[in-house]
């Protein structure tokens, strides 16, 4: 008997009847939970110097809007940075909830008999944005470049590279699932 491959996120139905299913195991949920906790701490940490964030990771999470106008840039950051943090934290909360990490009994009702969980489009989008933010942090820390490189198992950052690859795999399936309801 062959077992059919089931992606981590997939759709059933079509058009307005489209439903998304989340299919990640307990181990993956635990990893995502830990990463999201770290991301939350990172988003609320501040290491700003006069020109904005100092660490490359925070610079990448909070890029400049204006490259050659310090005054407008300062005004933009004053208005929008908190908004960006709030938006990201909102998405993390949504993802934590869908992963069943908030202990919300209502979540139990949305689990199917195969251990999957039904998601609405907004939740899938929150998952997509959070997963990509995690990839951005890890990718920046690992100094990921355009060229794919082979990482040996005994590489000191092998685990982080594996994690990055997993998140890329997850994101690819999330995007594919959302494309099914995106007009071509």
């Amino acid at each position: 008997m062959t077992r059919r491959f089931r992606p981590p996120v997939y759709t059933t139905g079509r058009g307005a009847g489209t439903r998304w299913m989340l299919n990640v195991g307990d181990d993956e949920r635990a990893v995502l939970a830990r990463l999201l906790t770290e991301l939350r701490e990172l988003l609320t940490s501040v290491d700003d110097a006069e020109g904005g964030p100092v660490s490359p990771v925070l610079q990448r999470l909070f890029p400049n809007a204006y490259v050659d106008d310090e005054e407008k840039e300062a005004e933009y950051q004053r208005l929008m940075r908190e908004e960006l943090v709030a938006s990201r934290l909102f998405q993390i909360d949504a993802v934590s909830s869908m992963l069943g990490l908030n202990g919300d009994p209502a979540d139990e009702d949305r689990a199917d008999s195969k251990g999957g969980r039904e998601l609405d489009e907004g939740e899938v989008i929150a998952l997509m944005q959070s997963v990509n933010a995690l990839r951005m942090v890890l990718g920046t820390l690992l100094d990921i470049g355009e060229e794919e490189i082979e990482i040996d198992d005994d590489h000191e950052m092998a685990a982080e590279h594996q994690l990055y690859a997993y998140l890329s795999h997850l994101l690819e399936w999330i995007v594919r699932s959302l494309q099914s309801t995106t007009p071509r």
Partner: protein
Amino acid sequence: MRSPPPPDRTTQVGLGLRARRVTAYDRHVPTTLEPTKVEEPDLADDVTSDRPWVVLVWNDPVNLMSYVTHVFQKLFGYSLEKATELMMDVHEKGRAAVATGTREEAEMHVFRLHEHTLWATMEHDK
């Protein structure tokens, strides 16, 4: 001749946030920007205010090609073909102009691109 009074950016920003097309994305975007925080435009802005702003997306090695294409489709309503073309411009030429508009419109586009962790900036059309 007197020039017309500068537009009230306070009103524009507030309306700009509320008037844009509501999508599934908006359910996760708190729109609590306080209009009182917005300053009046300085007069120097008026000289260049007729020129549109251009929103640029820059290449980076982390964002997946499929993801970037999807974000362009969702945020700007581009067809798959147009979004793919822009994504390839970013990938091959290092950057692409993905939208133009007023300063407020461009800032909102940049914000939403930043929400998606794309590397976006804006500048005056040259």
